[in-house]
């Protein structure tokens, strides 16, 4: 009934101060909600992109090679053949790269050293790295030269080296000996959260040299898909296909590869086995962070909703108290209880929709402004944001979601006082003073 809408709108207009106050709060909460979501979505996607680019790909074909049963090395042999199979079997493919895997000590001329994971790369094929790594010194393309290494800023500081300086990389080899290779720092990249803490990038051939691997051996193949959503499907298909093609494939084990040495070394087999995992296995911390972020978001949303709930309840109480006589009158002249309930619900709905609408516009503008302003993120927070500027990803969908969600909550909350208003006996309501 249109008249209920009219009554609602006019009552809201009549109590302008109250309406503005509560409406402002609802708009604020909506805007906050959208921003919060926009930030977590932003963090989530940069986090995912960085993590998968730096250390796993979407689907990861790794494995172990054992010369003797107790000596597993994270090596995949004859990888060019595998790349060919992947190209054929995965139409969802964006690109595939190979990464050497290692763990070694980097020693500077002045004697300072760090233990680091090594990623051996063929930089000509690493289109993702070029986007993710922000090189502050030197040139990423120089990683194509043999004996080249890229460090992150913290690592460079710790080793007290800069571009052009020499390093020795020393890795434990069979029978307690150490292999070494001499390299030159060709680039220094900005830190990317904590992910940059435990890895550096080494020319792929230098890594092979360090571990005395053949030309066609690498650590793992990183498969990047056009859409990360198809990860599981592709992973399953590849596993099946590779088994069919006669490759020995390890049982599915959703852990990062460095957890698997112990199990692999205890097993009897020798030679090559492949391990097909996905980014969730290899960089599971990404999921922890996302879960933590989601948890935090939910807690904040909950607190915000409580604020709204108290505000809406309180305001509606007052409104209903003031209009008790009117309710009584309307009930007396024949308005059913359900209608009274509806009358107040409509009022809450109108207030909710209008306020959340305003909140949506504010948040959209705010997001545009923040993104344009390139606000730097404090260093501690970069651990999580994985990005040095604040990025808020606000989509039409997330705005609509917030509008619908907050409006629904507002209306649901108003059910309680509305219900009590509708339940009043007409006489009692009419004789109400005030």
């Amino acid at each position, binding site marked *: 009934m249109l008249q209920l809408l*009219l009554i609602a709108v006019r009552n809201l207009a009549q109590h302008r101060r109250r309406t503005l106050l509560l409406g402002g709060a609802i708009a604020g909460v909506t805007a906050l909600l959208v921003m919060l979501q926009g930030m977590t979505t932003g963090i989530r996607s940069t986090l995912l992109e960085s993590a998968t680019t730096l250390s796993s790909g979407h689907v990861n074909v790794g494995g172990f090679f054992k010369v003797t049963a107790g000596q597993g090395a994270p090596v995949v042999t004859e990888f060019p053949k595998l790349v060919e199979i992947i190209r054929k079997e995965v139409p969802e493919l964006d690109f595939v790269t190979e990464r050497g895997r290692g763990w070694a000590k980097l020693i500077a001329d002045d004697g300072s050293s760090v233990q680091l994971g090594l990623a051996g790369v063929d930089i000509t094929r690493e289109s993702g790295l070029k986007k993710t790594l922000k090189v502050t010194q030197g040139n990423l393309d120089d990683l194509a030269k043999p004996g080249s290494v890229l460090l992150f800023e913290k690592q460079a500081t710790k080793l007290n080296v800069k571009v052009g300086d020499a390093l020795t990389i020393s890795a434990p080899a069979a029978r307690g000996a150490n292999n070494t290779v001499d390299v030159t720092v060709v680039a220094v990249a900005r830190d990317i959260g904590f992910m940059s803490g435990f890895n550096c990038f080494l020319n792929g051939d230098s890594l092979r040299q360090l571990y005395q691997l053949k030309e066609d051996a690498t650590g793992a193949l990183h498969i990047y898909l056009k859409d990360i959503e198809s990860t599981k499907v592709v992973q399953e298909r590849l596993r099946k296909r590779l088994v069919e093609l006669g490759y020995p494939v390890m049982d599915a084990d959703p852990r990062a590869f460095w957890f698997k040495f112990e199990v692999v070394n205890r097993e009897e087999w020798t030679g090559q086995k492949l391990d097909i995992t996905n980014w969730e296995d290899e960089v599971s911390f990404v999921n922890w962070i996302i879960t933590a972020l989601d948890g935090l978001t939910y807690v904040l949303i909950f607190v915000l909703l409580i604020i709204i709930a108290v505000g809406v309840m309180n305001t509606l109480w007052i409104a209903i108290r003031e209009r008790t006589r*009117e309710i009584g009158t309307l*009930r*007396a*002249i*024949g*308005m*059913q209880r359900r209608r009274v309930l509806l009358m107040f619900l409509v009022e809450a709905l109108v207030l909710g929709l209008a306020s959340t609408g305003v909140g949506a516009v504010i948040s959209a503008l705010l997001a545009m402004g923040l993104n344009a302003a390139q606000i730097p993120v404090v260093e501690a927070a970069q651990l999580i944001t994985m990005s040095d500027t604040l990025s808020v990803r606000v989509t039409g969908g997330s705005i609509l979601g917030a509008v619908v969600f907050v409006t629904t909550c507002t209306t649901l909350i108003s059910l309680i006082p509305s219900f009590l208003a509708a339940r009043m006996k007409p006489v009692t309501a009419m004789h109400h003073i005030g």
Partner: protein
Amino acid sequence: MDPIVSIRNVTKDYTLGKTVVSALRGVNLEVHKGDFISIAGPSGSGKTTLLNLIGCVDTATGGLVQVVGQSTGQLTERQLTDLRLHAIGFIFQSFNLVSVLSVFQNVEFPLLLQRKWTAAERRKRVDELLTQVGLQSHAKHRPNELSGGQRQRVAIARALVTQPQLVLADEPTANLDSVTGQNIIDLMKDLNKQQGTTFIFSTHDPKVMSHANAVVRIEDGQIKDRISAAEATLAVAAGH
């Protein structure tokens, strides 16, 4: 002819904590179609209580209340509301208009609640009523832009717009000056004569009583007598 209101041995108690106030103690009353009846009595005698029972906004503690042939004690809240909507019109002492709606919208409201009228029918009916109460030129005004007498006329139009069989008015003139009050009663009387609508109203005012077909005098929760308007005026003049 069946009475439009029939009340038999009705009692109404209000419980206030541990004390029980007997507002009505065995009331019997019959009102017939076309009656224009005044309920008179001192303050606290039970006039409002009686009208509330007839108006189906409250239920009796004991006895039988029949309104337009229905025993109200046996009806559900929904049915009572429907009965009020279709058979009864209310005029209140303090007008009780919806302040955010215009005069027109206030009068139209019961028609909207009935959900059986087209917009054109509603407009025609409301215009008729506003003309009858002399407010057609104020249709777009809000209640707070009107005088007390004008507001009460809007309330009368609202009460009559559904063509109820019975109109109840609890001290409809108490908040108006005597001339305006007089006009309001005249208006009610006209409508009673023209359309045969039954009116029951309560009042303290002898001048107002004097228009009634009959005055029901109530005292201490009981009907004292039912007398003519002339008798009532005399009785008030004599001081009892």
